[in-house]
């Protein structure tokens, strides 16, 4: 058992708010839960013990952090510093959009949010349960039926030295609604956070989603983005992850209504001794669903990436189209990638494909660039960037793509082949 988890359970007992019935249910599960060991499949490759071992100096927490806005994005920004919402929610919002703080929710918001809370996110995620019982801060975002919200909604989590934070995001899109949500995590100092988000995407609604898990250094971060798609709903999601002492993200999608479409792109770039673990499960519970999942990673130096992608096609989910692809570039012989794409199919009339590759940098392409005068190191950066840039190009929001590219370049510039 874990001292940290025991402490978390003890702290949870004093949490009392409008979500109490939901929190109690999760707390009961958490009391029964086993702390993961190396034998726990979901935590096989990433040593969770570092979470338990890492002691935070609670009197040293720095709170004067700010989140930079993204130039040209014109987003509605919701900033959490060490788990405390610092943005003013009283600004006028576009018609059809409601955003309230979890800690200060109106009765209306409470009613839909209580129903959504812990209903989209599967209960198997241990740290999801932790977030259920400890996340007293968060936002509830409601997009009315038929509302088209052009301004992206950006939720930023900034973590500073020795902070611990648990934040929750609940999003509901009504019928035919359209919205874009950006979840961003930053900070490179010793800290612990869990950040979970649940999205209920209504009939024929369209959600553009980004999760930028850009914490680095000594930060420990575990979280997830979980989606439930109604009939003809569309999800276009891009995840970008940098590694740190411990980073884990779970992305789960449930096709709950027929003819829903999910496009999931994910990128991870690791260097030094960083870790990054991406687990994703796509549940095709009904017929005629489509999933396209493309995951690409570059792993340098001593770093380690884990990708576990599962597509589960239930017996009734006929006519499902599902593709899952994971490609990796290995930059050093000490770097490690553990990839496991899984297709579990119980329906007989489906079209599915999955694959995973781990390769070294393309020597022929490297030579081609060098033969034009480009230095070997610059050629490597260009090729790495190209490998990832194909997915960056697919991001629907060009401003975000332009914001991301220089950060990726900086990271590539620091990597080298060893």
């Amino acid at each position, binding site marked *: 058992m874990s001292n940290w988890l025991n402490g978390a359970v003890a702290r949870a007992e004093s949490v009392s708010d409008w979500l109490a019935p939901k929190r109690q249910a999760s707390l009961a599960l958490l009391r029964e839960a086993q702390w993961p060991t190396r034998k726990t499949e979901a935590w096989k490759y990433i040593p969770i013990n570092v979470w338990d071992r890492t002691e935070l100096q609670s009197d040293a927490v720095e709170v004067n952090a700010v989140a930079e806005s993204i130039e040209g994005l014109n987003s509605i920004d919701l900033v959490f510093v060490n788990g405390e919402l610092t943005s003013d929610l009283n600004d006028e919002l576009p018609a059809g959009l409601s955003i309230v703080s979890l800690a200060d929710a109106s009765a209306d918001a409470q009613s839909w949010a209580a129903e959504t809370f812990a209903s989209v996110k599967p209960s198997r995620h241990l740290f999801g349960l932790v977030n259920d019982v400890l996340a007293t801060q968060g936002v509830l975002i409601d997009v009315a039926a038929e509302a088209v919200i052009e301004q992206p909604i950006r939720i930023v989590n900034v973590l500073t030295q020795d902070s611990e934070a648990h934040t929750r995001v609940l999003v509901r899109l009504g019928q035919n609604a359209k919205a874009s949500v950006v979840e961003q995590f930053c900070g490179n100092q010793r800290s612990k956070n869990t950040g979970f988000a649940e999205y209920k995407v209504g009939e024929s609604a369209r959600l553009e989603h980004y999760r930028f898990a850009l914490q680095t250094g000594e930060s420990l971060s575990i979280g997830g983005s979980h989606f439930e798609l109604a009939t003809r709903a569309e999800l276009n999601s891009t995840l970008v992850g940098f590694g740190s002492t411990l980073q884990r993200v779970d992305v789960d999608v449930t096709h709950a209504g027929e003819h829903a479409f999910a496009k999931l792109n994910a990128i991870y770039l690791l260097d030094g001794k960083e870790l990054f673990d991406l687990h994703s499960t796509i549940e095709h519970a009904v017929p005629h669903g489509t999933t396209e999942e493309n995951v690409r990673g570059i792993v340098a130096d001593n770093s380690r990436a884990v990708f576990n992608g599962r597509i589960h096609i239930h017996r009734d989910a006929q006519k499902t189209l599902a593709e899952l692809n994971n490609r990796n570039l290995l930059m050093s012989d000490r770097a490690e990638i553990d990839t496991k794409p899984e297709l579990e199919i119980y329906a007989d009339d489906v079209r599915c494909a999955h694959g995973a590759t781990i390769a070294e940098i393309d020597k022929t392409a490297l030579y081609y*660039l*060098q*033969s*034009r005068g*480009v230095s070997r190191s610059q050629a490597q950066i260009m090729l790495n960037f190209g490998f990832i*840039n194909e997915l960056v190009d697919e991001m629907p929001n060009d401003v975000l793509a332009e914001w991301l590219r220089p950060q990726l370049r900086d990271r590539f510039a620091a990597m080298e082949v060893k």
Partner: protein
Amino acid sequence: MLSIKNLHASVEEKNILKGLELEIKPGEVHAIMGPNGAGKSTLGYVLTGRDGYSVEQGSAELDGVDLLELEAEERARAGLFLAFQYPVEIPGVSNLEFLKASVDAVREARGEEALSSKDFLKMAREASKQVNLPADFLKRGVNEGFSGGEKKRNEILQMLLLKPKLCILDESDSGLDIDALQVVAEGVNSQRSPDRSFIVVTHYQRLLDYIKPDFVHVLADGKIVKSGDYSLAHELESQGYAWLKDQPADEAATNDVAEG
């Protein structure tokens, strides 16, 4: 310009070049013809420094600089250019970004000032026009989804921008229709100058009708076995290479030295 002496090279422990000799003076165009497997492409790869090609003996100098001691990128900066037989596709890296990086690197090595993005774009657009590639090809991934002819024209485009001293065209005519062939040939002819030389590797006389070479060499079994002027290309076109088998290689090499 280029001086190759007694060059022996192998790939995967197989000897390919077996004592190749070649002297090229500034402004000259040399055609190299010969049967498959003779070492024509290997010569280009060895000179440009491709991994996996090892030189056992001999030397290759470009204007007195020992090429074989240099990294691939340093050879390019010294003025060597190979137009590939099979140009590489690099999805995700835009053609423009690639061209800018290479032109920047080569200009810097020559001590020339870096071009502004605007000036470069103007230059790249003009060069695209010259090789008859639509300007939107500059935005696409390097050679990504290009047809065979488009890839070859993209090679010529790079040559126009990099302005090398010595250009090696490795079967730049293979797989081209007559229009594309003319574009390639015109690209080369437009770059002919008293201080730039060419090696044109080809199977066919067709390209040489457009690019009139000063010398034609026959490369067989890793050596130049016969050299002559432009008329040799016609002779080869009508006779093929069967005669090589009847001619002792040593004697042929002696002829070469005498003529070269």
